[in-house]
């Protein structure tokens, strides 16, 4: 089996529901604590200490929720589609469970990004909603999440449901670059990205540092919430196995 050495051992262990349940159980308490701490620091920083924008005033503070939720909504979608692909190709059950567990969290993040965007748009653009490319493609992202959730709950057989949801998730990936480049390809009211890998942010550090904290905090929150849902899903699907029986007896 020497030819398999190029992939680390944990990669194969990820395919075992029991191993996933145990490792996430060990990681969860620390991650939850770190996430809550980051969220608290980020919120106080963005509400109290970040300066108001010279044009938008204090409504600018909505950015500290709007951008992190939008970033996580898109990253979660990519993770969901990747899990879908892994489940389709290698028929790994844990991948199906990740696909199913990601959808409701991603949907709530897309919804939060849309709603905070609308609330921010009212004082800034004078309108709750405009049908421009960025807003419309974000709305489509929300519908894709809802579609994945609907397929998962409508189809009784778990592996058929996972396959259908994975195909929808994979087709919907085309929407992600559309969201990302919508502000460059089309004329829009929406401002361009704050963070770019190749350039320094256009705003001063007092403004973007708390935003960075909030983005990291939201990623942490996503991971924690995903682990919680995944563990429930594992317990449910493995409920007839010996190890879950043992775990139930011990409690």
């Amino acid at each position: 089996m020497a030819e398999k050495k190029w992939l680390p051992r944990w990669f194969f262990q990820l395919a075992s529901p029991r191993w996933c349940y145990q490792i996430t159980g060990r990681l969860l308490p620390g991650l939850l604590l770190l996430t809550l701490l980051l969220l608290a620091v980020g919120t106080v920083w963005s509400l109290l200490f970040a300066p108001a924008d010279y044009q938008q005033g204090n409504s600018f503070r909505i950015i500290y929720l709007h951008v992190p939720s939008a970033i996580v909504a898109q990253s979660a979608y990519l993770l969901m589609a990747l899990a879908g692909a892994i489940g389709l190709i290698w028929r790994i059950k844990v991948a199906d469970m990740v696909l199913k567990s990601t959808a409701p969290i991603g949907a709530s993040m897309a919804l939060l990004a849309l709603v905070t965007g609308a609330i921010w748009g009212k004082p800034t653009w004078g309108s709750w909603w405009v049908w421009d490319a960025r807003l419309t493609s974000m709305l489509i992202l929300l519908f894709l999440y809802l579609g994945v959730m609907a397929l998962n709950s409508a189809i009784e057989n778990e592996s058929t449901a996972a396959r259908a949801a994975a195909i929808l998730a994979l087709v919907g990936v085309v929407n992600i670059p559309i969201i990302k480049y919508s502000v460059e390809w089309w004329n829009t009211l929406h401002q361009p990205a704050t963070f770019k890998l190749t350039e320094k942010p256009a705003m001063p550090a007092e403004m973007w540092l708390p935003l960075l904290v909030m983005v990291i905090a939201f990623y942490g929150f996503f991971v924690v919430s995903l682990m919680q849902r995944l563990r429930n899903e594992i317990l449910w699907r493995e409920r007839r196995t010996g190890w879950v029986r043992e775990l139930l007896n011990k409690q």
Partner: protein
Amino acid sequence: MSFNSFSEFLAMGGHGLYVWLSYGLGVGVIAANLILPRLSRNRLLAEQKRRLRREENA
């Protein structure tokens, strides 16, 4: 600190409604995402324990 008084902080320079509505929703969405899976875990564990006891007694 960007504000001189608590009432100024609440007013958010006239944008209080927008800012507080957003942050209220943000807290709600995050709390729901952390609490709901915990509740369903408790329910799931209780159900499965009951099932196990039923099967052992049968």
